[in-house]
């Protein structure tokens, strides 16, 4: 049994991250870090993970050139990293599956998870069904209504979906409830946090399991075009997709861009843009850029995309943003919808609303001089069809 952490718990010059957890969860977090480190050093675990990523998830995912969209935007080349083609339809499965394998290795019999858009919930539900673990997913009631197909998918996989009615009924409340549930069942349950958030070691663990996206993409773009792009871009809710794509490019001389949800306005409560609108604060176990009011209460957020509708930017990504290694930009609801439509029409790919925020920024990047862009298409848009239908009038 260990009684302290061995990995760094803080990120960047501002020392973001940390482990601001209730005492009940401290020993479980020490144990989790120890199990994570041991697993990473165990060739059998790594081989099993690699095998599952290949044969169950469908990795490597393709890197698809998008020449018609590139031409339309005035880019010389555009490459899409197709996480939408993973099993369950988003990058979330990379982390969910790896943590489920870790939980089984730790002897845990139950899984707890939160979900916003439902992609992490579906991924966790699928991984649990495959590994024979029982699973409970906490989901805000607003999100359950706007992502109803994902609720049905989770239930088909045998997962219990617990509605969370508190507050706005979105991701923040779901995380609150998942943390409470874990404190009650931490002796037998593992909490699979879905983004690079929460107390240490979650941000580091989630980022580690997601960097497969950027590692594959970097090799694929070199293979296809013989050079690195001048810009790499991904959307960022908590930051698991953003970090997963961008971290393997940190040593390269190129622009790294993460796109937040600009929602429908600039005032607090109308968006989920933490870089402009946030201040350093502590929520859900970590210190990071946080949308909050003058009393230190978490602010309400708004986004057409449930997966980006969260008041805190993951601490490692916030650290990279504040230290100038990643540019953080925002795209509004309307811009994201337009970005989605353009990709559908030019390339025959239906993106998730989350990914559409990155697509929305492409014309601005082109105007700023970008010529070759690699974009993380984090998920597919089937779950968002009803929003697209109503908002685009189709």
């Amino acid at each position, binding site marked *: *049994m260990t*009684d302290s952490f061995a990995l760094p718990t803080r990120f960047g010059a501002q020392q973001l991250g*940390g*482990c*601001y*957890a*209730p*005492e*009940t*969860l*401290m*020993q*479980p977090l020490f144990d989790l870090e120890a199990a994570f480190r041991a697993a990473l050093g165990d060739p059998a675990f790594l081989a099993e993970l690699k095998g599952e990523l290949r044969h169950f998830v469908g990795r490597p995912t393709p890197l698809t050139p998008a020449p018609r969209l590139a031409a339309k935007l005035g880019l010389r080349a555009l490459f899409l990293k197709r996480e939408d083609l993973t099993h369950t339809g988003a990058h979330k499965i990379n982390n969910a599956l790896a943590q489920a394998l870790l939980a089984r290795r730790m002897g845990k019999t139950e899984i707890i998870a939160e979900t916003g858009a439902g992609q992490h919930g579906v991924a966790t539900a699928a991984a649990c069904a495959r590994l024979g673990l029982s699973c409970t997913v906490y989901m805000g009631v607003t999100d359950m209504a706007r992502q109803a197909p994902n609720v049905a998918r989770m239930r088909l996989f045998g997962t219990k979906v617990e509605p969370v009615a*508190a*507050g706005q009924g979105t991701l*923040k409340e779901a995380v*609150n409830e998942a*943390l*409470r549930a874990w*404190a*009650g*069942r*931490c*002796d037998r349950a593992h909490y699979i946090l879905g983004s690079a958030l929460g107390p240490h070691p979650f941000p580091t663990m989630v980022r580690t399991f997601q960097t497969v996206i950027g590692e594959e993409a970097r090799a694929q773009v070199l293979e296809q075009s013989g050079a690195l792009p001048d810009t790499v871009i991904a959307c960022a809710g908590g930051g698991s997709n953003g970090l997963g794509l961008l971290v393997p490019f940190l040593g390269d001389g190129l622009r790294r861009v993460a796109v937040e949800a600009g929602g429908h306005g600039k005032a607090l409560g109308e968006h989920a843009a933490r870089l402009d609108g946030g*201040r350093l*604060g*502590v*929520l*859900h*176990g970590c210190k990071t850029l*946080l949308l*909050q009011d*003058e*009393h*230190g*209460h*978490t602010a309400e957020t708004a986004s057409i995309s449930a997966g980006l509708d969260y008041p805190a930017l993951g601490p490692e990504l916030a650290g990279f943003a504040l230290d100038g290694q990643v540019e953080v930009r925002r795209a509004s609801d309307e811009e994201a919808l337009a970005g989605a439509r353009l990709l559908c029409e030019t390339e025959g790919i239906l993106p998730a609303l989350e990914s559409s925020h990155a697509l929305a920024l492409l014309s601005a990047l082109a105007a700023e001089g970008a010529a070759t862009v690699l974009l993380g298409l984090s998920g597919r848009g089937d779950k968002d069809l009803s929003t697209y239908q109503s908002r685009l009038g189709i």
Partner: protein
Amino acid sequence: MNPLLPFLMAGDPSLEALPQLLSGAKALGLDALELGLPHSDPIADGPVLQAAAHRAIDGGATPLRVLEALAGLTDSPDLVLFTYLNPLLQIGAARLKKLLAPTPVRALLVVDLPFGEEPAFEADLRAAGYPMVPLLAPTTPLDRARQILAERPDPGASAPFAQRFAYVVARLGVTGTGQGTDLAPVRRRVTDLQALTTRPLAVGFGLSDAASLAAVRTMGATPVVGSALVQALANGKGLGEILAPGLR
């Protein structure tokens, strides 16, 4: 030994009612009381205290207004301010010390602040007379319990209970009225911890009926009553009416 450590949520039912509740608690002979500073995201609280916090916030009980309402109060037990870190962090240690100075607050219980995460903030407040209450959970190994008690030291036998006690979390989970919380493991735990420290112990999470409170007292510890009290107050009962049976 302090017979009972009650918990109230500041601003529930109203900030105006707070002075009278506190003087009522003092009249019952209570040395100390935990006062919740309502937070938007109380991740360690069950449904009763979540609802109380949201009622209080909706009623305008911001951290600054709570501290203002406490300023100058003398007819009150010593207060342990029970809260989450972010509101305090946003106020900042320097301003917080000034705001606390005219209040009966004697210690802070910050649920999501393990020792070592904000060392400068914590040391600054401790030096000013606002120590952090050490929390010991069922998952806390005894070696770590020893370390927590050392990092958040006993200011000494002459200090009031509010500044000396360690909070023993009786069971896994969040605050709330436990249905039939099994007290046998709690008794073993308290005995183990009493072998580590001479400071007073308070036991909370899931105690509601008079028999559980009495059982904790036979362990030589102070029972905490929170959710059951907050719920009874919300149902319109008076403080004395609720607490007097548990004090017998």
